[in-house]
């Protein structure tokens, strides 16, 4: 099956501004296959020991929900999406309340190919962690696999939850289009962590959040590099006192490409948002930060802050950064900015003058650069998890 045969608007996607620097036309003519059923293979215990860090763990293998490999916990309602359609039709229906973001291409792509998904609801205020692992199996196939899982998460009224989404794959070539829809009911809090560290393949991910009154959404996003990786985050601050705080790190190398798309829509008064994105770029890699804050006319007294900083570790790397503000209200506090710079010579000399070799000095300064975002992660084991991935990135500097 070829993508071009199934997607009628494929040739048109680049008319959208957000695709200006990301060309996926190479996918058009490629053959892919979709895995239809739950695997018969269980994930091995070494993998579990290393990667399972949630109280509840939901596993997708090659885009298919694997109930056998998942781990349940009383704090969470977890159901395959097709069952949830029957049992909670009104809930599923309400997930369509999430408005469309500016680019619907990934969302549509996911809907076209989605065979499997999960419905999750958190009701309690217990500070438990649910982890979703999207795993590509270590098995050779003649035709690369296309996976297109969908997650619908409900944070019930007054609930409190931590949600970790990890993307790992052993496959050499694949296309994955994971989409997560999140709805936060009144007074709920969600700490969302998304760690993408597939080494290969093409990743087109998306996360959409609808926030109701007095909800808090704290996110930390990590995009490790692979040949082509894109994540779109759309946050809708739909009711008053909704607050969102997003920190992110992306680290690219080789000739890889990382694309970060963020849109925050202030749709009600007294809403707050903050974006803090830090990028590290090595070799001849390319990265994109396209961050938009849009404040509707009724969203008075909105507060928004946006900052993107990039550390260029090579003369050949390229960053396209575009912080944008669209403000229709008159009583708002908004700031935005972007920087890109090389390692500071004075800092390096200072460290070297104390006996630290140039190589280690570069690592210390780059690690310090990333730590400013990583230190915002409150859960120590998630911080360590990302730290370990980053360490191997720094090791290769």
């Amino acid at each position, binding site marked *: 099956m070829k993508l071009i045969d199934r997607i009628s608007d494929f040739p048109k996607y680049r008319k959208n501004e957000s695709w200006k620097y990301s060309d996926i036309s190479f996918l058009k003519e490629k053959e892919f296959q979709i895995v239809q059923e739950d695997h018969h293979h269980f994930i091995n215990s070494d993998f579990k020991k290393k990667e399972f860090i949630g109280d509840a763990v939901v596993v997708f293998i090659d885009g298919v929900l694997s109930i056998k490999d998942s781990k349940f916990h009383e704090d969470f309602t977890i159901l395959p999406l097709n069952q949830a359609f029957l049992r909670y039709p009104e809930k599923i229906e309400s997930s369509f309340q999430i408005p469309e973001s500016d680019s619907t291409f990934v969302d549509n792509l996911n809907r076209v190919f989605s065979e499997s998904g999960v419905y999750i609801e958190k009701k309690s205020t217990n500070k438990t962690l649910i982890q979703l692992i999207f795993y590509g199996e270590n098995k050779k196939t003649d035709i690369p696999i296309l996976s297109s899982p969908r997650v619908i998460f409900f944070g019930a009224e007054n609930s409190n939850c931590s949600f970790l989404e990890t993307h790992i794959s052993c496959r050499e070539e694949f296309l994955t289009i994971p989409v997560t829809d999140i709805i936060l009911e009144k007074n709920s809090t969600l700490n969302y962590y998304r760690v993408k560290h597939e080494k290969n393949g093409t990743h087109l991910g998306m996360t959409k959040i609808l926030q109701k009154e007095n909800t808090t959404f704290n996110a930390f996003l990590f995009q490790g590099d692979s040949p082509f990786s894109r994540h779109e985050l759309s946050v809708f601050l739909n009711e008053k006192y909704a607050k969102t705080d997003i920190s992110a790190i992306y680290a690219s190398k080789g000739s890889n490409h990382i694309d970060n798309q963020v849109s925050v829509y202030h749709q009600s008064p007294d809403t707050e948002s903050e974006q803090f994105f830090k990028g590290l770029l090595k070799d001849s890699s390319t990265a994109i930060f396209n961050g938009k804050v849009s404040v509707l006319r009724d969203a008075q007294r909105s507060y928004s802050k946006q900052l993107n900083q990039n550390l260029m570790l090579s003369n050949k790397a390229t960053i396209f950064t575009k912080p944008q503000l669209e403000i229709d209200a008159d009583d708002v506090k908004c700031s935005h900015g972007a920087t890109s710079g090389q390692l500071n010579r004075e800092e390096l000399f200072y*460290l*070297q*003058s*104390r*006996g630290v070799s140039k190589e*280690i000095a570069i690592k*210390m*300064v780059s690690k*310090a650069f990333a730590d400013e975002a990583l230190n915002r992660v409150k859960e120590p084991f998630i911080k360590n998890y990302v730290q370990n991935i980053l360490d191997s990135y720094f090791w290769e500097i």
Partner: protein
Amino acid sequence: MLTIKDISASVDGKEILKGINLTIKAGEVHVIMGPNGSGKSTLSKVVAGHPDYQITNGEIVYDINFKKKNLLDMEPDVRAKEGIFMGFQYPVEIPSVSNEEFLRAAFNEICKYQGVEDMDPLDFQDFLKEKMDFLGMGEKFINRELNVGFSGGEKKRNEILQMAVLSPKISFLDETDSGLDVDALRVVGEGINKLKRRDNAIILITHYHRLLDYVKPDFVHVMYDGKIVKTGEESLAYDIEKNGYDSIIKESQN
């Protein structure tokens, strides 16, 4: 120990040092004074190996353990590992790197280079605490980010702490006494004095004689326009503070 022979150096094509000669022996304290822009800071940066300076002439011979080495052939970190230290006039702030992490990394690199085993982190803490007590530094100082948000006095004290931890053979201290109040000056001055040994040498770059109340110099040099124009004893520093540089500069131009 260190012989600077006819060194000329420039930055962005502009010549700053125009033939400096200076011989430093173990156990000595030298003072370098001179009007602003005379090349004092450049001299210390050239010795430490700052990449912005091009050496256009001369050599710097470092004589250690009966071996003569050409300092100019070494990377800045190798110079530090060999025992060269520079106290910065403006210590650099490095966010997110903790003071302790930095000191331990530097100390361990030097240990490794000299073929000594790394110090256990706990032992290092004790070792550090001793040095800090002696410089009157509180414990919370060590957990802070390197020089970030430090007051002028704290930064300079931190430079002396680094010197105490790394125990270099030759230390160029570039205006370590500027921007200090009287109490901080005393702590820093006494600190430097305690770090003075028979097997090391200290070069103080300063505008004032007040630091010399704590550290007695063997030589006082006056730099002007990239050259050392006069060398004398401690009394020269007092003369300069009283009468300025004019007469010395005029004398040198005749």
